[in-house]
């Protein structure tokens, strides 16, 4: 088998490393471009966070001046959301969707490349705002605060978001079209891998909500540059309108950040537990339910913005309702694990890390969904702890899980497992140590977004800072692992995990046109147990196909 795979790749031209720096229309190149650039931004955003945590180790603003702290905080949030997690979701989608549906490229390959090449300029614009006075109003940029300080930094922030927003809209058009229109003949919607379902749900959210953020940013930009007063109460405008428009995107954005990674987890768990996924349709439909509910809950970010009581009740109820489809997913994953032959490799460890952290984040989410509790902890560190459990403990853990799972497919090399486990242990400890104390700090009343605080909050802040340093250290084994495995790792067979989705039917890494011949769907994506021990044996596959044709 291994020999066959090597012959195959030998007969087909491979991508040169320089292709990864060009306007290449191959979806696999674009996927890697997205992944690598998003990780570059992750390190930048992470460095900002480390400076902030260093500052917060002491109650006084003695490490960086308060203005710089505000700028770092604003850019940390913006970078991590718009330039790391969202593009990382797009990275997996770009790399995997055409392979999973058995086609040779996206529906619109050039559009796809345009979508990627909008993100680096977006990031550069954002970071270059330091030269003109970076924005200081937080990643939400609420007016009138955002109208008061540094006009040009704020404007660059807006431009940057418009670029990356455009990028994700173009990506979404591509994903939906490819998933709905380009599957191989035998694959109906219900035999499609769950990652594709997740991306379908994510892309619909992007198409409906991202443009509304564009509308908000356009109006904000007019306020900044042209002197209108859409959001400026001094000129008769209403800042709450901005909040509505902003959260109409930015709440769904939470699901745009997590849904692709729900998809990743749905792929990782059945493969490494060697079991059919439990509740395929439940997982697929709950993604769509989350998308729909995600669109009608935005005002739960605005319980303290003078929202009338009856409206708060509506948003409280719908927000809590999201726990239902999310719970369905969690139970399905646990059901899949139940009695499985679990292989505790790095991908699976991160999947476990995801399950446990995301569950905590989800539960605190239900807590802050309730109006009386939210009014108490609004804009405190409790909220910071909550969303870091969801977005770091959730999205980022699943992202790492996906990286370890598909690393052999993307590079043709196996990862170094001991380094992967070290990465997991450090990340897991660091994550909990950083973000768990924040819940307590919030309950004690420590405000978020500030550089100085009361002395009584210091012990827990020191704990949190130690956690942040642990997280910084945890990236070393990861980076070393990636580079070491890339050059020295053991050569990967075409299907090292004996998985059943179509991307494993081609060489690792896949040839330029993806499949040497149209792939054959001889069982569902998670039908482990129909003699899957032998899936990567060419002959067995042929026999099974013949059987399927005969029956």
């Amino acid at each position, binding site marked *: 088998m291994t020999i066959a795979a090597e012959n195959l790749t030998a007969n087909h031209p491979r991508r040169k490393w320089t292709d990864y720096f060009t306007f290449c229309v191959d979806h696999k190149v674009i996927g890697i471009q997205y992944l690598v650039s998003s990780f570059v931004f992750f390190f930048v955003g992470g460095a900002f966070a480390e400076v902030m945590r260093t500052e917060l180790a002491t109650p006084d603003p003695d490490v960086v001046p308060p203005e710089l702290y505000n700028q770092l905080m604003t850019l940390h949030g913006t970078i991590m959301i718009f330039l790391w997690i969202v593009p990382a979701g797009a990275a997996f989608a770009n790399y995997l969707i055409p392979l999973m549906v058995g086609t040779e490229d996206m529906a619109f390959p050039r559009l796809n490349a345009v979508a990627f090449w909008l993100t680096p300029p977006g990031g550069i614009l954002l970071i270059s705002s330091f030269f003109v006075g970076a924005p200081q109003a937080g990643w939400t940029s609420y007016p009138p605060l955002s109208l008061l300080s540094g006009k040009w930094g704020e404007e660059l922030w807006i431009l940057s978001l418009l670029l990356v927003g*455009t990028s994700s809209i173009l990506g979404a058009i591509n994903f939906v079209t490819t998933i709905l229109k380009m599957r191989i003949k035998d694959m109906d919607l219900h035999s499609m891998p769950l990652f594709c379902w997740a991306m379908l749900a994510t892309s619909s959210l992007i198409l409906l909500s991202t443009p*509304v953020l*564009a509308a908000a940013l356009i109006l904000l930009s007019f306020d900044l540059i042209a002197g209108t007063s859409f959001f400026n109460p001094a*000129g008769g405008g209403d800042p709450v*309108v901005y909040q*509505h428009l902003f959260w109409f995107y930015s709440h769904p954005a939470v699901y745009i950040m997590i849904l692709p990674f729900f998809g990743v987890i749905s792929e990782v768990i059945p493969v490494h537990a060697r079991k059919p996924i439990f509740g395929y349709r439940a997982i697929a439909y709950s993604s769509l339910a989350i998308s729909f509910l995600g669109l009608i809950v935005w005002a739960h970010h605005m319980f303290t913005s003078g929202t009338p009581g009856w409206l708060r009740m509506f948003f409280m109820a719908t927000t809590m309702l999201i726990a239902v489809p999310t719970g369905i997913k969690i139970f399905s994953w646990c059901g899949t694990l139940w009695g499985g032959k679990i292989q505790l490799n790095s991908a699976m460890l991160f999947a476990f890390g995801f399950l446990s952290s995301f569950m905590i984040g989800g539960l605190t989410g239900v807590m802050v969904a309730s109006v009386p509790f939210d009014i108490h902890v609004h804009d405190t560190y409790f909220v910071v702890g909550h969303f870091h459990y969801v977005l770091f403990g959730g999205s980022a853990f699943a992202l790492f899980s996906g990286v370890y799972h598909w690393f052999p497919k993307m590079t043709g090399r196996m990862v170094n497992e001991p380094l992967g486990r070290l990465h997991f242990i450090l990340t897991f400890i660091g994550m909990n140590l950083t973000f768990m104390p924040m819940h307590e700090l919030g309950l004690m009343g420590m405000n978020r977004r500030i550089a100085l605080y009361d002395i009584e909050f210091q012990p827990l802040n020191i704990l949190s800072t130690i956690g942040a340093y642990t997280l910084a250290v945890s990236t070393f084994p990861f980076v070393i692992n990636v580079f070491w495995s890339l050059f020295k790792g053991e050569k990967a067979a075409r299907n090292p995990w004996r998985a059943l989705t179509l991307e494993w039917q081609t060489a690792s890494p896949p040839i330029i046109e993806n499949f040497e011949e149209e792939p054959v769907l001889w069982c569902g994506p998670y039908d482990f147990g129909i003699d899957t021990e032998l899936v990567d044996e060419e002959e067995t596959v042929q026999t099974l196909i013949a059987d399927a044709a005969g029956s």
Partner: protein
Amino acid sequence: MLSITIPMQTSALSSDLNSTYTSGETHSHHGHPDLRMFGVVLFLVAESAIFLGLFTAYLIYRSVMPAWPPEGTPELELLLPGINSVILISSSFVMHKGQAAIRNNDNAGLQKWFGLTAIMGIIFLAGQMYEYFHLEMGLTTNLFASCFYVLTGFHGLHVTFGLMLILSVLWRSRRVGHYSSNSHFGVEAAELYWHFVDVIWIILFILVYLL
């Protein structure tokens, strides 16, 4: 800034759609000829969502402010924008005749009707310019004026872009003889975009001028 993103989205999409259109059976071997139109529809969904955001903001202002339009706002003339609306809406029908013509392989018909549509589009924009210069208010006069200029201006930008699509169809049809009865995706995409711009105008006209 508007002029950066919106045309960029559309032009990227249309160039890609055209490229798949000319270069490849590669993507149609799964038997889905309607792939490209599907992409255009998704793009228009996203476009509608921007307008939805702007209209919603307008409606909130309208319902929250004590007086709307605020005192001191000059009365909007209805005659000129009314005529303009009629021209824009009828241009959709004119354009449709062009699409029907190319379905019958009638290139001359396509050029005639699309040419007429382009002229009607230009008249609409000229009318809008005339209105802008004769209104006794500016972008920052008050909240209503700001909303008025941003909404109609953003729509005008889309008309301009639709016009560019129409002109590019005309150019291709004349210079390259690009379209025929069984391959006229560009014509249909331009038409769909133009209808979209029309529908948005009808909503905008009702919201801003009539309500």
